[in-house]
């Protein structure tokens, strides 16, 4: 095994708004803009961000449920974005997806057994016996009893349905599972069951995960590396511990500060970041976060900041905290850097005190 299992290069997706027969320029939604990352075999990469940041579009691009506008998706070095239908069919075995909503992602007319064996039957014919054995096997893998295979989705609880969804993803023995908000629709206690199941499966089968979520608690629990997205772009990508211990990008910092902490003795509700996520149809110029950013300088309004590598291996796209161009400048600049006005670092340190504890 050499090189990463999954490598994404400059992935871009623009959705045209309406048809453009009569209009010269069609407005587009810039859902995903120049996204690059890689996933090693057996590791978990998390993608976090708020709604509209493009994280679900990334998942759909990886599965090629939608066609990318640009960029490459390489699995073991093969670009699947360029594959024809037939070749793609074979690659589908390597990657599977677990969906957010355990209610709508299962066909209400099929039994659990039919649902989980269907992927395999797309590739080979199964006898009745084989099919039952396979279904029983898969159900046992996800901690359900084999008798459940005759149930319809409407006869299962939310957690059981999500287990069926996971069993379906496991059926083809994929090397990579993309989980798009796989536990968001579940209650806390069931969520814990499903997270444990995913971790167990990873250990037993060495599956890689791309885990997409908006819940920082879940991400910190399951992730090894985390990519933070804002308005279609990755703004920070780092090791999980490092990211939560010391976020560098102001948006990452704001996101972590905004997440409610289940501990009433902790300082309450710091000043939250102002404003709302702008529309991806007409994103702000320069750094997309600058209208909400307490650190924004003139340059942020003009240039899109590139992802700059830092000393600890993370990459950050921020003109202020991670200035590009200077090769020696590899240590992250934090809010209390003397170069920046006191007033600015003041607002930040209020939040920072909470973040760094």
């Amino acid at each position: 095994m050499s090189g990463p299992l999954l490598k994404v290069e400059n992935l871009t997706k623009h959705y045209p708004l309406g048809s453009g027969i009569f209009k010269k320029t069609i407005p587009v939604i810039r859902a995903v803009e120049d996204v690059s990352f890689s996933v090693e075999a057996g590791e978990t990469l998390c993608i976090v961000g708020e709604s509209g940041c493009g994280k679900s579009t990334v998942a759909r691009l990886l599965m090629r449920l939608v066609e990318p506008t640009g960029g490459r998706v390489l699995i073991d070095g093969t670009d699947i974005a360029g594959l024809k239908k037939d070749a793609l069919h074979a690659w589908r075995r390597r990657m599977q997806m677990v969906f957010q909503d355990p209610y709508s992602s299962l066909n209400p007319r099929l039994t659990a057994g039919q649902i989980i064996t269907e992927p395999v039957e797309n590739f080979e014919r199964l006898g009745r016996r084989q099919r039952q054995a396979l279904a029983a096997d898969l159900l046992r893998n996800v901690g359900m009893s084999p008798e459940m295979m005759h149930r319809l989705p409407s006869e299962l609880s939310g957690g059981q349905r999500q287990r069926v969804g996971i069993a379906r993803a496991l059926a083809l023995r994929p090397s990579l599972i993309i989980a798009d908000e796989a536990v968001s629709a579940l209650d806390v206690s069931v969520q814990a069951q499903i997270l444990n199941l995913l971790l167990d499966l990873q250990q037993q089968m060495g599956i890689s995960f791309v885990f997409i979520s908006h819940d920082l608690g879940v991400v910190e629990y399951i992730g090894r590396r985390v990519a933070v997205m804002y308005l279609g772009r990755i703004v920070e990508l780092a090791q999980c511990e490092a990211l939560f211990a010391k976020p560098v990008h102001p948006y990452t910092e704001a996101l972590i500060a905004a997440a409610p902490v289940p501990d009433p003795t902790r300082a309450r509700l710091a000043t939250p970041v102002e404003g709302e996520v702008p529309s991806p149809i007409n994103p702000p110029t320069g750094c997309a976060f600058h209208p909400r950013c307490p650190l924004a300088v003139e340059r942020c309004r003009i240039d899109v900041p590139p992802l700059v590598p830092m000393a600890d291996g993370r990459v950050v796209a921020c003109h202020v905290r991670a200035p590009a161009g200077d090769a020696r400048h590899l240590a992250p600049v934090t809010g209390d850097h003397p170069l920046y006005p006191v007033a600015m670092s003041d607002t930040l340190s209020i939040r920072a005190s909470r973040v760094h504890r």
Partner: protein
Amino acid sequence: MQMHQTVGGDVLLDVRDLQTHFYGEDSVTRALGGISFQVKKGETLGVVGESGCGKSVTALSILRLLPRLTAKTVGGQVRFHGRNLLELSDREMRQIRGDQIAMIFQEPMTSLNPVYTVGHQIAEVIQIHTKASRSVAMARAGEMLRLVRIADPERRVNNYPHEISGGMRQRAMIAMALACSPELLIADEPTTALDVTIQAQILRLIVDLKERTGTAVMFITHDLGVVAETCQRVIVMYAGRIVEQATVIDLFARPAHPYTQGLLRSVPDRRRARHRRLPEIPGIVPSLREPITGCSFAPRCPFATDICREKTPSLRDVGSSHATACWRAEEVMGA
């Protein structure tokens, strides 16, 4: 910490043995199996539990907003200012709703009328409950929008709900709810549909407004983080009953019911070792269609003994303003 000591004081809302049933074609769901609690003046009471535990039904039962054909409050009292809300006429109830008790819902888009402007809807609430003229009410609507920190309120009063963002809609809902300075605000998962940074803004707003206006808040949520950030006292519900009631500090520090304990432990928390198995609560929530003998949590409970399976525990004190419905609370708290 100082904040939590201010709990005491007068009782605003006194719910006693409230029972609500839902009627299916051939079944009865006992959504609320007799719950009792109080909301004191000016406090924030959190109501937590997972889906189907009856927390929203509680709010709807108090305000008598249950669907008439399929649900009925079959027993208990809801005393507000000494009057039992369940015995009031529809007309009297309408006067209380929106004026003295207001409610905000999870999805602001569906609870705002899409064909009227935001200002119009807020002004309408004011006009229903006061004898204010149209122009006075509209001016007050503008003030309310400023109060909930909507930027550029003069312009926003003339916007339709679809023209503003989700966070702003929830702000408008809060403005509408607070327009008549209610004494009690019932917030049913007000931030669940919002993004994290917007959620933080809205939570902050609710806490600030509560402190400024002295409105008591009943905060219904499934998110323990939100409870920890906003509430002073907490009620934990499971299968249509209250299983624990405590100050927020006590609840998180010394949970006395095994369900609360399991719930707190199963939240992924960055302070614990990562990639370790999360402690999970095995099994699933029981169906409320069949009557449950004994403690409804017993089948999932690691502490359960014979008495738990035979006799239903009722709330009992296990500390100052800390009560739980568990036979083995002492062992649970020691664990």
